[in-house]
């Protein structure tokens, strides 16, 4: 057995993928992280208190995990869903009652979407109240705000796609809110709907926004966001509290 493992891991093929050895040394541990595309999100070494659950609640990571679930289930739903009138509603019902595992995927997509909005807002609240948005992380906060916008817009555009009464009237109310914006309001509504009432053009526009443009925006933003976390010095740690001695000195 040991010989077999040794022979397999000794092949040129294996060595072309994994370039580090097995011995439990600091060098191999470091190589395992920074020669691996997926692991290099983290630095080779992080402070234990920086990755403590209490510090961040892992809310950013959980938001990203939700987005990954949404991406996978969303792509699967696209195999059955046609963004046209009246097929959209029928396809949604087919997914619920006819397609194998359809109801599971649809509900997973739905609940992950709800969870993602909640987690993103909680992540922002933690970042804000911990003061982690302050320099040098101020630009990453701005990227985060745009990611939150993308999340909310994805949630909103996805709401129309079932093409049921709830969807129809929710988007009626939503686009009328957009119309209430000064000066640009009426044009904004026209561009969103591709018409004056919610109809086939609006469904198609919301579909393209939901499945192509907004996910692209979010993926791009997420890459920069995670990259900046490392470039700005890793997860925020509050400066050490002034020691008792210094306090006495000042007093």
């Amino acid at each position, binding site marked *: 057995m040991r010989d077999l493992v040794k022979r397999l891991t000794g092949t040129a093929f294996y060595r072309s993928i994994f370039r580090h050895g097995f011995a439990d040394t600091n060098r191999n541990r470091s190589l395992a992280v920074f020669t691996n595309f997926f692991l290099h999100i983290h630095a080779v070494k992080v402070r234990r208190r920086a990755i403590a659950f209490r510090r961040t609640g892992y809310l950013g990571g959980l938001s990203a995990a939700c987005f990954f679930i949404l991406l996978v289930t969303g792509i699967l739903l696209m195999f059955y869903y046609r963004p046209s009138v009246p097929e959209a509603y029928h396809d949604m019902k087919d997914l619920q009652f006819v397609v194998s595992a359809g109801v599971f995927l649809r509900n997973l997509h739905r609940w992950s979407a709800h969870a993602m909005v909640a987690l993103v807002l909680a992540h922002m609240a933690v970042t804000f109240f911990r003061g982690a948005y302050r320099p040098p992380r101020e630009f990453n906060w701005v990227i985060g705000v745009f990611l939150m916008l993308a999340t909310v817009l994805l949630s909103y555009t996805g709401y129309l796609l079932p093409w049921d009464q709830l969807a129809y*009237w929710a988007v009626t*109310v939503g*686009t*009328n*809110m957009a119309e209430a914006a000064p000066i640009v309001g009426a*044009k904004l509504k026209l561009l969103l709907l591709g018409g004056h009432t919610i109809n086939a*053009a609006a469904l198609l526009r919301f579909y393209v926004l939901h499945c192509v443009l907004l996910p692209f925006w979010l993926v791009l933003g997420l890459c920069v966001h995670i990259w900046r976390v490392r470039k700005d010095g890793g997860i925020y740690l509050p400066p050490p509290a002034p020691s008792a001695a210094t306090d006495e000195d000042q007093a």
Partner: protein
Amino acid sequence: MPLDDDLSSPLSEEELARRRTLTLLGAGALTAAGLGTAVVGYRFFEPNVFYEEDARVGIGRPEEIAPGSVMVLPKKRLYVVRNADGSFYALSSICTHLGCMTRYVPENAQVACPCHGSRFSLEGKVTAGPAPRPLRRLKMSLERGILIVDASQEIPAGQLFKVT
């Protein structure tokens, strides 16, 4: 021997002038292309043809509508009222708050919106709720004996249509 690159060799006045001109030309071309793309892009997203229903709706012959009656046309999003004296008026049934479809409640002769609780009188006046304006009163006309309501033309509140 030190490396001789273009940064360390001084530029002549002529070369500097040429560089400024080309920079200006390049920036100008980029600006023009950017503005053009923005305008064309905006025009692309604004449809030129709307495949929508006609705003003008024929609702029937006036002599077939009894005085003192209310016609509820949910698919056309209209209420057509004929007063006891025989005059007509037409109201849009779209709530002026956020665009939901209102419902006529015959028991107390009022119009109610299910979304945020706005209430209107049968004349279209707001009686309760967040609606900022009365229901839109629409222009009516008579063509070849058929009453027509034009949902794209609003007329002042209180104006009535009389068939002569």
